[in-house]
């Protein structure tokens, strides 16, 4: 690692926010970049509420989580991302409570010197979050309220990174 690279990695920033309120993508990305001139790439993923799932229309969605454990689980997955990828910053925002179709649910944003590491770390963090962070979705459909089932495909997505999930 060259001296500028060492200086950049010492500046790394990581944060997680679990909350009811919406988030502003521009503001989140700006916070990730602010004062870190080594950043040359930012990759951000936003998950939103679909108006349909498993063949039924979705009127509203309620997100429950395990306060305390959620933050710990996401901080642990960020530690893994920093260990695996040459990234400078990572930010996760996840909303809880009652949401409507088209609402934003989750943000994962990652900054790095070059694009490849941001792309990879962003996908790694999402795959990890889908199967390891204690959130649960309940959706209201014309047939009534139902808890969303975990998907085996999410376990498969995490296994690409060499991590066994066993969630679904």
């Amino acid at each position, binding site marked *: 690692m060259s001296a500028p690279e060492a200086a950049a990695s010492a500046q790394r920033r990581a944060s997680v926010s679990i909350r009811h309120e919406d988030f502003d993508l521009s503001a989140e990305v700006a916070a990730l970049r602010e004062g870190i001139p080594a950043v040359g790439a930012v990759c951000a993923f936003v998950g939103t509420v679909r108006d349909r799932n498993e063949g039924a229309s979705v009127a509203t969605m309620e997100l429950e*989580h395990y306060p305390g454990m959620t933050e710990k689980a996401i901080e642990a997955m960020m530690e893994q991302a920093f260990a695996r990828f040459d990234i400078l910053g990572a930010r996760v925002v996840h909303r809880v409570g009652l949401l409507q179709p088209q609402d934003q649910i989750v943000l994962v944003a990652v900054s790095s010197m070059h694009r490849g590491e941001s792309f990879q770390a962003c996908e790694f963090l999402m795959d990890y979050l889908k199967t*390891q962070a204690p959130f649960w979705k309940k959706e209201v459909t014309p047939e009534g309220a139902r808890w969303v089932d*975990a998907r085996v495909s999410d376990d498969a997505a995490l296994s690409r990174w060499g991590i066994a999930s066993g969630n679904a």
Partner: protein
Amino acid sequence: MQIEIRFFASLREALGLSSLSWQTEAGTVGALRDELVARGGVWAEVLARGRAVRASQDQVMASDATPLREGAEVAFFPPVTGG
């Protein structure tokens, strides 16, 4: 030993309970689950072996083999579905 047990999402709803102070003889998280199943009724149904139930101890994911700690906070919940 004395522990605190918490339940989330569909388990919490089915049991009608979000937490429970519990005196246990179990040595592991898996044995604790079996102990709760042995209470019968809705407990046996919700925590039945063969149903997808995940667990944590002191807010870290746990497996059946995880040794129980005195005073621990153990939680049982369905597979996670965030993101």
